């Protein structure tokens, strides 16, 4: 009995969280498609999510591409398979590393910022003020962020893919002695439409997850500064776990035979 009670409590609280999150997500989605719309707020959030994340995503992508080329070379050289490096780089970056690493970086930067901003608005009664001013916070705060996340992450991942492949090119050509033209030709030959599309679909899903988690945890934060701190941590942790989980699910959908 003493063992079953905490287990039962844990299971119940898990389903409670899933239920709350599902209701929050469905409400947020429904407000994305119902007027009034706030194009200026959406644009502002797109700049916040996309433009200001470019440096961190770009740096992550270029070093990932460089390391990928270097590691692949040290492994493939044993089997005289160095020529497969462009293939490995383009497939790894477009299918997995571009969207996942960009998603995790944006979760840390944007998800945390959203949770902190909305959480502060919650504990300082600014969200209550929105209600009393006859403005639905889901329309004014949540929907613009979710729309911006879903639209911007794919663009950000396209940029990350390009920079990541360029990182692989830099190491392969300038350090490992590959012929530039051959490397580029192989990269283009090995690039598949489905690989890029699957990465972009993942990016859109990750954009939704990041913004939803940031907004959800911020919206439900309570208890002052400590509550906002917890909301920020929870937003980043839950978004990161969900990104990795949905990465597997989307990979299954696209590539399982």
């Amino acid at each position, binding site marked *: 009995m003493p063992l079953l009670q905490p287990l039962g409590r844990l299971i119940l609280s898990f389903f409670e969280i899933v239920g709350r999150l599902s209701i929050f997500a469905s409400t947020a989605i429904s407000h994305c498609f119902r007027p009034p719309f706030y194009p200026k707020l959406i644009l502002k959030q797109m700049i916040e999510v996309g433009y200001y994340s470019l440096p961190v995503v770009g740096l992550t992508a270029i070093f990932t591409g460089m390391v990928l080329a270097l590691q692949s070379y040290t492994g493939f050289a044993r089997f005289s398979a160095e020529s497969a490096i462009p293939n490995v780089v383009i497939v790894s970056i477009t299918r997995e590393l571009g969207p996942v690493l960009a998603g995790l970086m944006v979760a840390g930067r944007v998800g945390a910022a959203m949770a902190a901003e909305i959480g*502060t*608005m919650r504990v*300082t*009664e*600014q969200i*209550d*003020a929105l*209600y*009393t*001013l*006859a*403005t*639905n916070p889901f329309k*004014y705060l949540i929907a613009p962020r979710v729309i911006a996340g879903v639209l911007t992450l794919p663009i950000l991942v396209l940029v990350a893919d390009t920079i990541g492949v360029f990182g692989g090119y830099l190491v392969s050509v300038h350090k490992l002695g590959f012929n530039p033209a051959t490397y580029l030709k192989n990269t283009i030959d090995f690039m598949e439409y489905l690989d890029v599309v699957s990465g972009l679909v993942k990016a859109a899903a990750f954009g939704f997850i990041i913004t939803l988690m940031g907004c959800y945890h911020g919206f439900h934060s309570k208890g002052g500064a400590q509550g906002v701190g917890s909301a920020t941590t929870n937003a980043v942790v839950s978004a990161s776990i969900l990104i990795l989980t949905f990465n597997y699910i989307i990979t299954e959908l696209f590539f399982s035979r």
Partner: protein
Amino acid sequence: MTDQHDVTNKAVRIRIRGLSKAFGKKIVLDNLDLDIHEGESLVVIGGSGTGKSVLLKCVLGLLKPDSGSIQIDGQEIVGLNGSVMESVRRKFGMLFQYAALFDSLTIWENVAFGLIQAHGMPREDAHKIAIEKLSEVGLGERFATKNPAELSSGMKKRVGLARAIATSPETLFFDEPTTGLDPVMGDVIDRLIVQSVKELDATALTITHDMDSAKRISDRIAMLYQGKIAWIGPTENLETTDNPYIHQFINGLLEGPIKVSVTNTDRAAE
């Protein structure tokens, strides 16, 4: 417990019947009845944790009561949501305890927020009204483009008041309007509240535990204790009533019917 008062001949704007709200085992509002008449300023007083804020949030539709009825101009608002509740809230103006100004907007945008978002007014027109309202609360145009973080607490309260009255609402709500202010600034805010309520011919519901402020801004005062109205009457009767709750509260006495937790044992027993 109820003294005679002279506002009952006016129509009731806010009618509360059998309102109950509990958080877990803690009963905050217990079958509460209250009428607020058109054009009157009612102040609800009571100690910390007696449910004043919960009452206000229930009337504003920010909290859902467990049971009971709240009618605004005869319209039941318990259970309303979405656009119907928003249309009810368009008649409201609210000054929050710490002003609750939007950090991301300038002062004039804060004041004009309701006009632009809820009433669909063009920004240029809303800007003009915002400047007028800021001037009414004693803030010049030079403050219009500042951010809330650049203002003192008293100035924030004034901006909050300007925002509350910007849409010329029929009903105004004030949550602890003088909390955190020095006595002089508290007096200034009270005078502005009285002036705004008169000019708009609005109904006002205020919650506070500042007795000086309560006397200055109210036509009637209601005292909340253990989730019920322990006394209600005209402000001028406050000093003369023999109600033991009022006597203890306004004189700040430890002995009396109001039980106050002063020891750790008491707190643990709660």
